[in-house]
């Protein structure tokens, strides 16, 4: 979801009989829930798929700092500013974990970041939406981090060991962020004035559908899912995760005293789940293709940060090698 569409490059999932002995051994380990580690043999397509997924996930953490930074300098109190800054700091840390996990697969961090900056790889579509009010800081914590957690809790059981362990660490912090976000909204709804309450509802109206899109296309439009599921990189389908998210989020929405911008949303006694309206998939694909409200701005900001920092990183490298030479001489 922080990696919504991951190309596996595999047209059809093969069965054990069609595999080479190595592949079969690998698949049997997967089936037996034995974690794959960096030095184990793995199919090249598994490796590439994971690099794509983990790098997208890492890029999402980093680009995801920007919509929140937009209100960091305008946070309305010490408490809120401290929380938001701590949260953004955590996100940078999550990016670092994930890039490290990705590097165990033989990928290079700088190369993957360069691909992001060239627009060749994705990050979560949600971060292409603008933050227009302070309430968005609450909504992002509650809905966006909430959606991330639903996905990441499952990814704690993903088949690749380093990714799974990164998820376990990240989930602990994410849960904290989600509670903080929800508390921002709850405070505004319970202790706020009418303008603040309207701000909250408006924010939910704007972020509701984009948050649901974070789970990726419907299962019928996810040609890559079957292989990712067979490799147990993914553990649940997009639609199942989305349903789980909606089911657990509606009671929270009701507690806030707010509504979802979805006239078709209603409890289905028979299914034991909420039914909900159709997602605007044309918007989803537009944003994914780079045409969301902030795509250009987000990428430009990240590109400039790294480009403007060239001389700083070069200085650090030069200094380190000078120090090394001095040590050798001594």
């Amino acid at each position, binding site marked *: 979801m922080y990696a919504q569409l991951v190309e596996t490059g595999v047209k059809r999932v093969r069965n054990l009989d069609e595999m080479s002995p190595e592949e079969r051994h690998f698949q049997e380990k997967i089936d037996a829930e034995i974690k794959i580690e960096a030095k184990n043999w793995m199919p090249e397509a598994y490796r590439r798929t994971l690099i794509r997924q983990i790098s997208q996930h890492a890029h999402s953490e980093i680009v995801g*700092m920007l919509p929140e930074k937009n209100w960091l*300098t305008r946070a*309305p109190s*010490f408490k809120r*500013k401290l929380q938001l*800054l701590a949260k953004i700091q955590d996100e940078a840390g999550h990016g670092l974990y994930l890039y490290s996990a990705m590097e165990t697969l033989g990928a290079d961090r700088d190369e993957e970041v360069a691909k992001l900056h060239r627009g060749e790889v994705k990050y979560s579509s949600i971060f292409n939406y603008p933050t227009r009010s302070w309430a968005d800081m609450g909504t992002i914590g509650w809905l966006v981090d909430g959606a991330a957690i639903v996905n990441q809790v499952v990814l704690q059981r993903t088949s690749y060991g380093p990714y799974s362990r990164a998820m376990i660490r990240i989930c602990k912090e994410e849960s904290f962020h989600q509670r903080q976000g929800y508390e921002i909204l709850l405070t505004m709804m319970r202790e706020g004035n009418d303008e603040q309450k309207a701000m909250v509802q408006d924010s939910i109206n704007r972020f509701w559908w984009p948050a649901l899109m974070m789970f990726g296309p419907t299962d019928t439009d996810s040609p890559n899912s079957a292989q990712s599921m067979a490799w147990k990189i993914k553990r649940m389908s997009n639609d199942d995760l989305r349903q789980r998210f909606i089911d657990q989020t509606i009671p929270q929405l009701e507690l806030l005293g707010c509504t979802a911008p979805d006239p078709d949303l209603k409890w289905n006694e028979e299914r034991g789940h909420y039914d909900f309206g159709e997602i605007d998939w044309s918007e989803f694909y537009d944003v994914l293709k780079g045409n969301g409200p902030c795509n250009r701005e987000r990428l430009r900001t990240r590109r400039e*940060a790294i480009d*403007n*920092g060239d001389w700083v990183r070069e*200085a650090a490298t030069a200094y380190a090698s000078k120090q090394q030479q001095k040590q050798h001489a001594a």
Partner: protein
Amino acid sequence: MTAQLNSACRQALVDYLLHLGDSDTVMSQRLCEWVGHAPALEEEVAMANVGLDLLGQARSWLSYAAELEDQGRDADQLAFLRDEREYRNLLITEQANGNFADTMARQFFFDAWHFHLLTALCQSTDAQVQAIARKGLKEVTYHLRRSTAWIKRLGDGTAVSHQKMQDAIDDIWTYTGEMFTATSTDPLLVEAGIVPASAPLQQQWLGYVQATLQEATLTCPDENAYMQIGGRQGLHTEQLGYLLAEMQFLPRAYPGATW
């Protein structure tokens, strides 16, 4: 302790606490501006981390100032509802981020002052000042280690980084003298043993700065150069007004609202 302060001393301490709290607030705000724009991911973490520490310290100083002032205000009201003429931060803290070297020059000079000041404040006769300083010193020790390391990396890195670092130091130097310029009421606090005298502090600071710059192959500007002052009297550079307009927007736009 506070009960024993006479009213002149109490007012002097409130002013001093505002000076500490405002300096941390403004410095932290500048660091917040870097978020998402740092030259490396590790620096995103570090920049946010330092900003967060300073924000925490700001809240402690301003809470104590509000308590002593006893006018029913809290730290938030002090930070978010005072105008630039009432802000008591050091001018150096409000200087724009500029490039990474500009930010690091500002950070280094500030950290070195902060470190020596908090070290001295750990001996304050005021228990509350002492407690806040003790907590803050642990954090500032880390800040100084980091900014010192960057001064060396940039100063003794490449020709480009050396030049940028030197330019940054030369540009901001004029704002360093204010850190050691006492106000008319500071002597009351020095006499009461609440805050340290600034002359010895300045010597410690200068010794540390000169040694670091030398190691970084940089030239230390003239210690007797002309120094800009005014922050502690609420006479700021043109930069503070914009910083506060952004920072205070919500509490100003929605008076009395709870967030």
